[in-house]
């Protein structure tokens, strides 16, 4: 094998593997917390729904859950690219676009929450 470095992989596999599982656990916890919070609402209407998300703690927890989802999506989508997209140029372009998109989603989520 040549010494040429593969630009779309740099032996970060184990770290990604572990973080994929940690982020999955965070997502499960957030989902269950949200489910309980919604079920505890006296009634599902705008007032109760908005009050729930206006809570500072809820905002922070939701942002953490959201970041876990976005990171989880990044690792998963990158795995799909690595399996099916072989030409480095196309793969790198798709990866870059995906990073931009997911980062944008993160800012979007923060905006939705802190506008409240």
């Amino acid at each position, binding site marked *: 094998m040549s010494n040429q470095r593969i630009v779309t992989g740099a032996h970060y596999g184990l770290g990604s593997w572990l973080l994929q*599982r940690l982020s*999955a*656990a965070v997502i*499960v916890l957030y*989902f269950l917390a949200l489910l309980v919070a919604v079920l505890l609402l006296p009634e599902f*209407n*705008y007032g109760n*729904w*908005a009050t729930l*998300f206006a809570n500072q703690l809820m905002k922070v927890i939701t942002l953490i859950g959201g970041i876990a*989802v*976005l990171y989880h*999506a990044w690792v*998963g*989508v990158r795995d*799909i690219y690595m399996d099916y997209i072989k030409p480095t140029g196309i793969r790198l372009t798709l990866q870059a676009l995906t990073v931009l998109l997911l980062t944008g*989603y993160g800012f*979007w*989520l923060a905006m*939705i929450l802190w*506008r*409240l």
Partner: protein
Amino acid sequence: MAGVPTKRPEFRNIHVTQILGYRLPIAGIVSILHRVSGALLFLIGLPLILWLLQESLVSELGFERFLVVLAHPVTKLSLLALLWAFAHHFFAGIRYLLLDNHIGLEKEAAAFSAKIVLVLSLSVTVVTAGRLFGIY
């Protein structure tokens, strides 16, 4: 020239055209659906959920609009597809976390848990479908 071995079919990387002829065990079905559901959640789930969250929180009017959008059959069907994707990804993911911790690694146990994943995710989807379309 004694016995040139006869060519036997080899399955290394499965080509798309071989998929239907390939016998995938149930754990393999759960596995590929994990990938399909993940892709679906990324492509449609993330933008749709963010948009719905935004609409539902922006104002009382937005919330009413959000309820109207939710009531549309097309939205219901899309959300059901996403719900299935999420449920499958959720239960299959928990199964993988257990497998990673060497729980249920044996052939029978793994096949059984794969079956449970399929049953649970489909049940959640069907039960919600009944609720969404007002069967009960």
